[in-house]
């Protein structure tokens, strides 16, 4: 251990704590009663599914412009990528997500699935 190691260690610890704090604040901020999965490709929304309202399992296949595919499996309150023909299948290995703030990313096909806790994005609070 040299002199500078400690300084770097402390700086890294602070950065990790800040990053953890920021993401948990973000996750807390999108929590809600709803469970909306938003599927996007290249930043454009291609499908939104209300996971609370899914009764029986359903499958969707999304094709890219060059003929590749992601097969998405939707269950009650959960969503996963069942199959894809990308080289590493990281999206399939990501498994099932069910809580707001979780996501699945398929980088080769530029696909991202987010779960939102609130129905009305953009409204800070609502009273019922």
């Amino acid at each position: 251990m040299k002199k500078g190691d400690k300084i770097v260690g402390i700086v890294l610890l602070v950065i990790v704590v800040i990053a953890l704090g920021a993401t948990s604040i973000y996750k807390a901020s999108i929590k809600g009663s709803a469970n909306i999965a938003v599927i996007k490709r290249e930043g454009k929304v291609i499908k939104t599914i209300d996971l609370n309202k899914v009764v029986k399992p359903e499958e969707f296949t999304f094709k890219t412009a060059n003929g590749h595919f992601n097969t998405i499996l939707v269950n009650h309150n959960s969503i996963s990528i069942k199959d894809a023909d990308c080289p590493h299948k990281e999206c399939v290995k990501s498994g099932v997500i069910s809580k707001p703030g979780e996501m699945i990313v398929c980088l080769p096909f530029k696909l991202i699935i987010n779960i939102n806790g609130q129905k009305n994005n953009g409204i800070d609070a609502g009273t019922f």
Partner: protein
Amino acid sequence: MKKTKKMVLLSILVAIALVIYLIEAQIPVLFPGIKLGLANSISLVALILFGWKEALLIMILRTVLGSIFGGGLPALMFSFAGGLLSNIVMIILYKYLKNALSLPTISVCGAIFHNVGQLLVAAFIIKDLRIYLYLPVLLISAIVTGYFIGTLASVLKNRLEKILAFDKRL
């Protein structure tokens, strides 16, 4: 060191890095996107034994060849962005703070910037900044793997230095 000898040594290092990279790609990972980054130890050793130009060269050759043998174009973009950023950070740290920082620390910084660079490309490709939710996990993994790789590189460096010193006497 003679020019031919250096060329041979560098190509051996590239070959080693490539094989490590390809074998590592077959190992299943705990969490998508997290890798040990064993091939990075070769870049680190090259940086110490040869210099920054050679380290960059090895990194570039390894990522280009690696994407030819498996991975394809998207993988090339990620490896390249991550590798370039991490190598530049390690080169700067090694050049100016060699006496203040030990090898594992330099490697940890390199690993962190590797992941930051990859996330940057990912956010750009997917056009969604929320991918940065992965950052804490990737930071922690970078610290662990970076430390491991740095320790490995320092062991490797000691051995290789002995061999190269022995070689000079011949």
